């Protein structure tokens, strides 16, 4: 019989809190794990991660400068922060000027970012390095990022100048790592013999993660979402993903990105998701982020993107119109 089943819940909670150690005092997390909760398992004996989950949160990706040295909120600070951010982000608040107003896009009822900070009360999704900020890029990666940045600041010349979500190619919710965005932060996890499978709402991507120990694709097999391989370490699903392309540049990463994700069910309604970015040609050191996934009772819907992407044409036409107007202004000077 599996001795894992006999580990009392308090040990599970202790393990869950362990990554928070790093010399800081962690307040008790806002999880509601009851003393009687025990890890549900699939018929194969693996922890059951199945269901629909969401990772929406208003916790920022990196720790803001004005929260330096502060890895955790207190409950009161969290409530205050939530109130302030929700108020500031509320798109029913019109912009201070026309430019800001246009960028606000549309009403708040179209958004669904989540309303709360993460249940761990951390002040950022990045948890290592301890300052909660992504480590510096290597000089080469910095140069590449700077030229990409320059392109994104000028008028788009063609579709390739647009960002991946705008091109309907890839959203940060899919990544990987799978990170919350402005809306539709939903995932369905299924488990069958030999696989863990994750359906990501945007853009209907499916990560099919084999557990049978097969090797990764060869170096020629490059994919937008990489090539994942999974295995269990105790009750944690560890997913090792390589074979990325040079088209995604997650936070400045390159095609040598090696991503290790960990999924640990920590209660009836939570999975703690951690990811470690290992990419020595792009980052000066490895770094780790964490965002809890909580159970959702709402269905997922089809997100067909490219099929209805009128905005792509509109944006390019707008850019051409703006160029024309600017050229005319120059001529008449």
């Amino acid at each position, binding site marked *: 019989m599996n001795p894992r089943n006999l580990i009392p819940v308090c040990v599970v909670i202790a393990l869950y809190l362990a990554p928070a150690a790093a010399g800081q005092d962690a307040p008790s997390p806002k999880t509601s794990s009851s003393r009687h909760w025990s890890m549900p398992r699939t018929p194969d004996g693996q922890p059951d991660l199945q269901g629909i989950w969401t990772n929406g949160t208003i916790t920022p990706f990196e720790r803001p400068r004005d929260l330096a040295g502060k890895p955790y909120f207190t409950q009161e600070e969290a409530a205050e922060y939530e109130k302030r951010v929700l108020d500031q982000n509320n798109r029913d608040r019109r912009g201070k000027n026309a430019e800001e107003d246009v960028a606000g896009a549309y009403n708040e009822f179209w958004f669904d970012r989540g309303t709360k900070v993460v249940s761990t009360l951390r002040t950022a999704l990045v948890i290592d390095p301890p300052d909660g900020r992504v480590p510096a890029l290597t000089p080469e990666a910095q140069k590449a990022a700077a030229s990409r940045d320059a392109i994104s600041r000028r008028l788009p010349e063609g579709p390739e100048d647009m960002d991946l979500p705008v091109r309907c190619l890839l959203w940060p919710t899919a990544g990987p790592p799978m990170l919350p965005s402005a809306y539709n932060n939903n995932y369905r996890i*299924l488990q069958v013999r030999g696989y863990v499978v994750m*359906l990501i709402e945007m853009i*209907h991507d499916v990560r099919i993660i084999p557990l049978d120990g097969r090797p990764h694709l060869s170096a020629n097999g490059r994919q937008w979402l990489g090539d994942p391989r999974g295995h269990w370490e105790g009750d944690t699903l560890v997913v090792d993903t390589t074979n990325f392309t040079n088209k995604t540049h997650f936070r400045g990463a390159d095609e040598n990105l090696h991503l290790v994700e960990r999924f640990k069910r920590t209660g009836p309604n939570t999975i703690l998701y951690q990811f470690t970015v290992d990419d020595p040609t792009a980052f000066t050191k490895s770094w780790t982020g964490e965002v809890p996934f909580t159970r959702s009772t709402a269905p997922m819907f*089809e997100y067909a993107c490219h099929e209805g992407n009128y905005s792509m044409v509109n944006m*390019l*036409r707008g850019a051409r119109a703006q160029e024309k107007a600017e050229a005319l202004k120059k001529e008449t000077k």
Partner: protein
Amino acid sequence: MLIRLLWTSILMGSVLAAAANNQQRHNRTMQGKPDLNGIWQALNTANWDLQEHAARAGLITSLEAAVAEPGGLGAVEGDEIPYLPAALKKKQQNFETRLTADPEIKCYLPGVPRATYMPYPFQIVQTSDVILIAYEFAGAARTIYMKNPPESPADSWMGHSVGHWEGPTLVVDVTSFNDQTWFDRAGNFHSDALHVVERYTPLGHDALDYEATIEDPKVFSRPWKISMPLYRRLEKNAQLLEFKCVEFVEELMYGDYRKKVNK
């Protein structure tokens, strides 16, 4: 005589061993339902043309035989697609303009049942609550609700699928389609009234019998049915690879709006 007996027992032993092996390969799930998990693919010309057709020249002359359209036996029972008169004209128009009008060209989601018989593999992920089918082409995916299906709030490309078991057969009822997909490259099409009922029945361990009944009162005078085998991909370590073709069609779709470089 003895040798004959020996060979017979060896043969029987092999048959029994194979049967036992099949059992070990879990062709039934824990709940006693047929296990459709795996990677499957159709092996026919249905994506070219659902009806029986002879080979015909391709439409890109510079690519000659590489894009010629192969002949094939049809997948339609009775080989007739019962179009209403006005709809038949539209089908013919689709056929004539298929080089530009086929939504496959723009990497649009292929809809159902076309996703099943595009010449690329798909993976069935079967649990008791939902069955997810992930298709290689355009990364299409659909969720088949086996329990407590939600309501469908609007039309979609891959439809809204509700499934149940009838003995060894998975029956999937698909509705809520938009009118944007085609059934094949020959221009067979439907309206937003499309209703598809699929049936997946195991044929041994490595094949499925696939049937789909298609009903659309705005386009067809009666329901009609297609059927074909689906074959399990048997390669060791078979896996779906990404086929994110959106990137490949950007120039076609947006090239006209690109900044012109003045010489």
